[in-house]
Each structure stands twice: as C-alpha cells, then as structure tokens.
C-alpha cells in the first residue's frame, strides 16, 4: 500500500514506537499513584515524554498536558477562553474540532481570511476583526485540506498587540514545522500525538500558556484530600489513568523527530507535495497548490472525489476524499459542493509515492 493519508494519522510508525508501546504494556502499572517499581516506571515513562515534548515545543514539562487527541485539547482550550455569545475570530480554514465547540458555546464567530495561500489577505482580515473587538482567537497553523501554512507568527503577534488571548491548532504542523509555546506566546497550542509526532492513536498534547479550566474531574494522585481539582498543571487537566502505552509510543515518536530533525521532515514533505502538485497539474487535474504549502495537496478529477478515492484504494493508494471534517475550509476554497481528493505526505515522503499515484491515476482514467 502507498500510504498518503498522513493528514489523518501516521500509519507507518517507526519501529521504535511499536517497541515502546509493547515495553510499556509489559513494565508499567498506573502512573502517579503507587510507589512500587511498576508504578514508578509508569510515572517515569510519562514524565520522560513530557520532558522531551517540553524541549521540542519550548515550554516547561508541567505545561505539557496529555490529551486523548487534538480535538480534546482544543475543547479544553476553547472552553477556557470562550464564553457564550462572545466574539471569537477564526481563520477561514478551521476544522470542525474548532468550529463545533464554538458553535456549541453559541459564540459570535467571525471568520477572517478566505483566500487560499494568501498570507497577506489572512493577516489583513484577521487584524480587521481583532480591531473591532474579540474576546479570543483560534486559528490553525496548517489547513488540513489544502496544506496552506497560515502566517501564525504574525497572527500571534497581532493577538498580543490587541491583547486578545489565542489558541493555535497545530494538528497538521506539529512534527513538520517549528511550533513553540514561548515563541508564539500562545495561551494554548493543541496537537495530536498520532500524526506528525508519530505516536499511537489516542494520544495528544495541549501546551498550556495559562491556567486552564478542567473539562474532566476526578482523581489525580495529588492533593487527594481536596474536592476541587488541583490548581497546578498538569494535574488540573489529567484526572484518571493516563494512556501509558500510548505516551510511551509518543515519546519514541518524539525521539525519532529529534534524531531526524523536524526541519528535515518538513522540507521533505513540502518538496514531495510540490512535486506531486506538479505531476497532478501535468495530468490535467484541478490542483490546489501555491506558495506557503505544507505536505498536503488537494485535487479534483473527472469523477466524484469519494469514487476517485475508492478507485485509487483498489490500486493500493490510500488517501482521503470528501470534506475532511473541514466544511469551512472547503467553503473558503469553493469546494463545499464537490469536496476534494487529498494527498498528505509524512516523514517517509518520496518521489516513488508520487510516481505510484500518477500511474494509478492514469491507469484508472481519472485524468
């Protein structure tokens, strides 16, 4: 199988990740609860991952909170910053993981910047909305549909300038682009553990730049006498037993990134996406490509996008079609009616993957 759905999850994990998961299942009991060897080993396993994540994303270990996925982290962050009815600025490329919690809160959502691959438009519109007054801002680093890299550093600077707290959704950028809590000065940055960070499914990280409101309540193994949740991180957000095998695998994924270099992986993915876009254009398909593009490319062909993905799946090409849980992004790009076929590269991106995709498209008459 040629796997080109890294935007959904990193399916081919490094061997070290698989090994770490298995080791944790053999050696780890409940973390942060007991004092016997297997409990201490679990506690250390969780902390090692926290420490490595803190190093990679420039914060302190206690600011690294483990979540079940990126959506979980976004929900905590949004529930902390956004109050019902208040104005919130978002980009035109947000995922349902952002828009649904805001809808659920009945927030006054203001969409800023609809033009693909146009950071100047994004910034101009974003500032316009900040100027008119907003209680918070939420924006993605990279569009999960089109790979558009939003100018997050400048957006963060604008938020700081206007005193608007903000959340960055790093679902598609963590592990491929620089992401730093202290550099951005963000209130929260949410990311999945199982995509670019190469951990197992069921893992995620929320970086906390401010005190959050808990979404779940329960035992933390600390200050058990009190009925209020602890007022310190990470305990405030981590009640219940942690996903230790998942976190062990995530740690192995982070170590792989450190060894390989996030910049190297990002470059490789972007280069693959550029070459893929070029090939698809030469095949006469409608391709969504431009500057400021990460390792993701969307395209349209002669057939319905879901049908095209099915045809390609039968030829061993794994990619995703439809709305990708991001109707807002499709509305911005004018593809809400059609959806798109999405190719998303990962750390193992190569020309041979693109060539295989090209051959399959030609063979199946999609071009």
């Amino acid at each position, binding site marked *: 199988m040629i796997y080109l759905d890294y935007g959904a999850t990193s399916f081919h994990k490094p061997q070290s990740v698989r090994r770490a998961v298995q080791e944790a299942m053999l050696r780890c009991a409940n973390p942060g609860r007991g004092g016997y060897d297997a409990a201490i080993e679990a506690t*250390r396993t969780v*902390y090692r991952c926290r420490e490595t994540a803190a190093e990679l994303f420039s914060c302190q270990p206690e600011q690294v909170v483990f979540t079940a996925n990126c959506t979980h982290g976004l929900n905590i962050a949004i529930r902390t910053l956004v109050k019902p009815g208040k104005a919130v600025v978002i980009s035109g490329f947000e995922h349902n993981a952002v828009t649904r919690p805001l809808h659920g809160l009945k927030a006054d959502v203001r969409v800023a910047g609809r033009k693909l691959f146009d950071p100047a438009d994004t910034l101009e519109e974003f500032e316009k909305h900040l100027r008119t007054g907003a209680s918070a801002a939420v924006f993605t680093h990279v569009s999960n549909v089109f790979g558009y890299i939003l100018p997050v550093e400048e957006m963060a600077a604008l938020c700081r300038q206007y005193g608007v707290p903000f959340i960055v959704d790093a679902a598609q950028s963590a592990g491929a682009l620089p992401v730093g809590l202290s550099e951005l000065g963000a209130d929260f940055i949410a990311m999945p553990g199982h995509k670019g960070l190469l951990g197992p499914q069921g893992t995620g990280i929320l970086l906390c730049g401010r005190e959050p409101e808990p979404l779940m309540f329960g035992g933390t193994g600390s200050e058990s006498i009190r009925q209020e949740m*602890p007022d310190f991180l990470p305990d405030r957000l981590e009640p219940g037993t942690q996903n230790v095998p998942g976190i062990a695998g995530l740690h192995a994924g982070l170590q792989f990134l450190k060894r390989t270099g996030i910049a190297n992986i990002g470059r490789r993915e972007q280069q693959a996406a550029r070459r893929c876009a070029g090939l698809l254009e030469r095949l006469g398909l409608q391709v969504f490509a431009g500057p400021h593009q990460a390792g993701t490319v969307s395209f349209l062909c002669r057939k319905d996008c879901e049908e095209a993905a099915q045809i390609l799946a039968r030829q061993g090409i794994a990619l995703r079609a439809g709305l990708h849980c991001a109707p807002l992004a499709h509305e911005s790009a004018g593809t809400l009616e059609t959806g798109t076929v999405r190719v998303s590269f990962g750390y193992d991106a190569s020309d041979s993957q693109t060539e295989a995709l090209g051959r399959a498209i030609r063979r199946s008459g999609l071009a």
Partner: protein
Amino acid sequence: MKYCILTFRSVTFAQRGESALRKAGIDCSLIRTPKNLSSRGCGYSLRLKERDANEAVERLHGDGIAFGKLYTVHPDGTAQEWQT
C-alpha cells in the same frame, strides 16, 4: 540512619526536581510522600542524604522548581521540618 525528604505538590514537579538534582550530581530517589508528612493527601517526594539537603534546596530555588517542605527523618521514624 537519618535521611531527608523533600515534598512536592505534584509528581511532575518531583521529577523535575529529581532531574535537576541528578544533573547537579546530587543522589536522590522518587518516593511516595509518607502519609504523616502529606497534609493534603497523596503525593511524591524526593529522598536524599541529609548532607546534600542544603545544596539541593539551593539548586531547586536556582532552577525555579517549586517544592513543599524539607524534613529530616530520624531512625525512629520521627520527622523534623527544616526552615528553608
């Protein structure tokens, strides 16, 4: 034999402390906080030699790692709090 216990509010801070002390060459181990030293119930501490206690406190202060209290535990099990 006497030893010292440094208490922490969370296991994460206890491990940050452990990491900082080990980097400074101070031997310590992560343990559950004895119940009689844990006024809020449940937690983790670092156990270390009494002769290292002053240096450990200085190091933690220097690294901005918050800890709770420092005790000397005597061979008969009684604990005496330090004024840090």
